């Protein structure tokens, strides 16, 4: 589904990502973790076509992100790190705007928005102004936006940051439902929670893949310990990919 091949990216002379290669199969949820500044958000921005890599390719179902950007972007749903929204709109107006912007046919817009509101647990809040929403609900509206057009690839940057436990559970439920028809790449530091629903974990360190674990290959405690060891160790430490 998603093929990331030898991605390298620098801001000026500062190398942010080096030789990132991985793939994500349909229905798979891959969690990307790492220290602050490890390159998680930069990687997500490259996958979302917001940054252009210096070298390497990103392909979604064979569609190259640089050669056919509009078609590539049609297949993705992106949740930005800070969940920006238009505060003057209601939840329903915002989702309608976004669904239309993503090119959904006029006849389907209403249905898509209702489905998305229901799937994201926002059904009772469609008429609420976004400026009145708490951080958690803003994040859920952003998640609803990312899910709205049934993308093939979901890119969720720092999905769980700043959410309380019920909100995290609600997000996880929405994500589990979405993963039946999409591949998911999600970043964050909440590794304990992400291990509940992800199929693989990628640890980024200093812009490189330090480890890529399949969760089914390890006992949970062992996997957590390995990840903790990588995150606690000196930058540049590497574990053989599983």
């Amino acid at each position, binding site marked *: 589904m998603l093929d990331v091949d030898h991605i390298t990216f620098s801001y000026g002379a500062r190398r942010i990502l080096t030789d990132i290669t991985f793939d994500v199969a349909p229905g798979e949820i891959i969690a990307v973790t790492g220290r602050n500044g490890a390159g998680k958000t930069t990687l997500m921005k490259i996958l*979302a076509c917001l940054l252009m890599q210096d070298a390497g390719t990103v392909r979604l179902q064979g569609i190259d992100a640089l050669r056919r950007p*509009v078609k590539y972007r049609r297949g993705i749903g992106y949740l930005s790190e800070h969940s920006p929204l238009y505060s003057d709109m209601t939840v329903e107006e915002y989702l309608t705007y976004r669904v239309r912007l993503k*090119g959904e046919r006029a006849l389907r817009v209403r249905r898509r928005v209702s489905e998305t509101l229901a799937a994201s647990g926002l059904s009772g809040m469609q008429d609420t102004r976004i400026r009145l929403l708490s951080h958690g609900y803003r994040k859920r509206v952003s998640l609803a*936006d990312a899910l709205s057009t049934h993308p093939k690839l979901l890119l969720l940057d720092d999905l769980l940051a700043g959410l309380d436990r019920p909100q995290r559970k609600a997000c996880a439920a929405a994500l589990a439902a979405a993963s039946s028809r999409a591949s998911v790449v999600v970043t964050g530091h909440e590794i304990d929670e992400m291990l509940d629903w992800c199929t693989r974990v990628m640890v980024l360190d200093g812009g490189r893949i330090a480890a890529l674990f399949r969760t089914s290959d390890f006992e949970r405690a062992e996997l957590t310990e390995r990840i903790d060891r990588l995150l606690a160790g000196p930058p540049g430490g590497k574990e053989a990919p599983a």
Partner: protein
Amino acid sequence: MKAIQVIWLREIRAFRGAFSCGVPVAAFLAVYGWTFVMTLRNNEGSVLQIQSIWGLSAAPWLPILSAVLTMRLFAEERATGMIDLLMSAPIRERDLVLGKFFSAMTVMAVTLGLSLLVPTLLLPALSAPLLTPASAAAIAATALILLLQASAWCAAGTMISVLFRNQAAAAVSSLIVCSALPIAVYAAILTWMPGLRAQVAWMPLLVHVYDFSTGLFSTAVIALYVAATLFFLFACSKLLALLRLRG
């Protein structure tokens, strides 16, 4: 086309409730009204026609209005981070730019329409015996040149808005590009290159307004404004694409 319409509608909505729209439009109408009255008074007994007075009173304030209207178009999106969501949507940069540009132009057109109430309704009602009403063709010609100038200013403002996260900085830069820079270049040419005087004699923007309002059409002038608008819009979409290079 659909994406342009969606963005246009969103921006019109944002303009409707924005402090950065109502106040500048009201201020524009106030200073325009004052300029109109002063021009009318100063030209008492002259042959200046009413549509010319309208055009000459509105044109000097258009760069300022366009700078204030366009400052938020991209600067606000960049400040809030919404630009990421717009750029990750399956739309071309060109559609994004055009949607925003047309929204600013819509506000401009409505504002110019409101300013037209003074010479067409208000003034004849107040001093009917003194004025002969302007013909529709003359008013249309004046509106055309004002809209052409407004489109160039709005396109420049839209492009400059991409460069900033701070709206005030975008507005000041637009003002410099749209008003101070042409005036400075013109003054510099007149001062230091007197040989070029004849070539730039047509440059003053008010001359264009006056010519069009009196029926002196020039395709070169139309081409100039259309080319300037297209250039700024093209540059704007390329700048947006450049954001993908370095964030």
